[in-house]
């Protein structure tokens, strides 16, 4: 079989204090963004399905931190955290959630469809695993054009059982494309535990013998571990070794979406994971390193709180798209004359 050369175990890069502070800030921002999002959903300012990232912040923050702006990032519908980690402003995100013209997708996509071309953020996709073949296309384009770009594709543990995952990974393995496939294994696909959906629950094993794509496991509640693993992974891909599969062990604190009674798990289970809260863990480290103290934490959260409130208010006040916008962007010609009107 195709022998698998795993990433070189180079001595781990140690993040700087500035990086750690930045990550702490980003994770806090994501969490507060999501809390506000939940509130706005209750107030029915947000429609459709809304999937929160609370608990998984370290995954997006730690992994995106290792990427270059020129790398490609694509994800599923639980996309708020990735968008923020990728550096998207939060006002357009709130505006999108509120269905406003100022939204990052002009109000056409909603929570599950955040896009930002300038940030090389390719969405936000709602059909489970349907975006994984797109990631292969992004990787293909980079290889074809001989560009130094790696494609980072996020999806959930439930997506692994879709046919498109299989076809995509075989293609990536066959052409040794510069793609990192990252499964955010938060234990559940909606209410179904991995054990009840996947014949093999040690997910990192599912791609090696099947596609010649090495699988690695990493602690998704630790943004430093995420960052270091990604550094190695990106190195591996940039050096033309092909694709990698990263199984990230993480957990979502909230329901699958806003409308989830969560009968499938106990409060105790949730509490157990919260003990390893990614923000709390980093906060502890930063305090040990004397980079922050309680006062600073309070101040920072205060500052973020204000940012979030301000952005949300701005978005709330922004105008909805007009009736004309209904007909816009169906085709490349902004207003296709031949649409049935």
């Amino acid at each position, binding site marked *: 079989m195709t022998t698998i050369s795993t990433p070189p175990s180079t001595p781990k890069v140690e993040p700087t204090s500035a990086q750690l502070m930045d990550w702490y800030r980003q994770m806090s921002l994501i969490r507060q963004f999501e809390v506000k999002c939940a509130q706005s959903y209750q107030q029915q300012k947000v*429609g*459709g*399905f809304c999937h929160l990232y609370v608990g998984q912040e370290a995954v997006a923050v730690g992994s995106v931190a290792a990427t270059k702006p020129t790398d490609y990032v694509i994800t599923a519908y639980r996309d708020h955290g990735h968008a923020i980690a990728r550096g998207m402003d939060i006002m357009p995100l709130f505006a*999108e959630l509120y*269905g*406003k013209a100022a*939204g990052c*997708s002009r*109000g*056409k*996509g*909603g929570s*599950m*469809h955040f896009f930002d071309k300038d940030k090389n953020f390719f969405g936000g*996709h*709602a*059909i*489970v*695993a*349907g975006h994984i073949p797109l990631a292969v296309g992004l990787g293909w384009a980079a290889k074809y054009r001989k560009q130094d770009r790696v494609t980072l594709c996020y999806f959930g543990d*439930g*997506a692994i*059982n*879709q*046919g*498109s995952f299989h076809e995509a990974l075989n293609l990536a393995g066959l052409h040794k494309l510069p793609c990192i496939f990252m499964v955010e294994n938060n234990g559940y*696909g*909606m*209410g*179904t535990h991995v054990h*009840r*959906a*996947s014949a093999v629950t040690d997910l990192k094993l599912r791609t090696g013998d099947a596609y010649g794509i090495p699988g690695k496991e990493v602690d998704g509640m630790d943004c430093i571990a995420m960052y270091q693993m990604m550094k190695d992974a990106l190195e591996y891909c940039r050096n033309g070794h092909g694709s990698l599969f990263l199984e990230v062990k993480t957990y979502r604190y909230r329901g699958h979406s806003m409308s989830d009674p969560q*009968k*499938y798990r106990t409060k105790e289970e949730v509490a157990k994971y919260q003990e390893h809260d990614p923000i709390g863990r980093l906060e502890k480290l930063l305090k040990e390193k004397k980079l922050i103290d309680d006062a600073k934490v309070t101040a920072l959260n205060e500052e973020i709180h204000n940012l979030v409130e301000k952005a949300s208010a701005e978005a709330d006040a922004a105008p*909805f*798209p007009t*009736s004309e*916008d*209904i*007909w816009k962007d*169906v085709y490349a010609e902004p207003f296709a004359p031949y*649409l*049935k*009107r």
Partner: protein
Amino acid sequence: MAVLQFREALREAMAEEMRRDPDVFLIGEEVAEYNGAYKVSEGMLREFGPMRVVDAPISEAGFSGLGIGAAMVGMRPIVEFMTFSFSLVAFDQVVNNAPKMAYMSGGQFQVPVVFRGISGPGQQLAATHSWSVEALYTHVPGLKVVVPTTPAEAKGLLKTAIRDNDPVIFLENESMYGNKGEVPDGDFLLPFGVADVKREGLDCTIVAWGQGCLTALAAAEHLEKEHGIRCEVIDPRTLRPLDLPAIVRSVKKTGYCVTVETGYPTCGIGAEIAALVHEHCFDDLDNHVVRVAALDVPMPYSKPLLQQVVPSVQRLADAVKKAVYFRG
């Protein structure tokens, strides 16, 4: 006669059939331990156990095919799509293996499977999650397509679907799951291919089903009150087989016909009905058939846009007025 929610009527139909016939089972995402994403199958796992109420991985092509294969040996699977938007990743199974097996095997293998779930735009779910799949599936010979409008129809048509020996596409609607209505107890079955006159009228025929039928009834009410236009609302209830005689009878009486659907306008059910009505009522029509459908765009997320894209009572009422007043 009990008053039941639409979802309860569906559950009653499934439960009764499962008690009757050990070959009936339900499979789909979150149907068992979660009690159904929309609580349609609530409590069924407790009564029937995990072999008969089965949680599936997110593998629509896989478990649709599982249902078809099991049906080939006489089982009667009910395959739930969380929404029919997700049936599109299983499209080949639904439009090839299910409807063509009987024909390709020279009649040796029937496929008595029911595919059921939500169709139609929900609450701001955006473009990929808002499919109305009627037209896609009614296009295909070998399939039967059923769209109940009332809780009673939900029960009566689903029981018929489960006992039917052909593959049935059974389309429900999220916004209607909570609707209440009287539902006959016990063995209540409604035949396929028999339309229901939901409202009688002499001035204009409106052909509508499911969600669109509720819009039609509201519009008819408004039109009679405000404009004295008496609409006859015909609900085909099954789009394949289609009760064309019932539609033709009505149009010959009213001379006008308007169709309404939540799906895309091009090559939709409205197009088919319009073509048929013109074929059968050419000399009876005082105006061409008017089609009301979703606007010809992907479903937008933004609420004010979505509300304009999906046919509203107002838009339908205006269309009817335009249809009947067009001469002057």
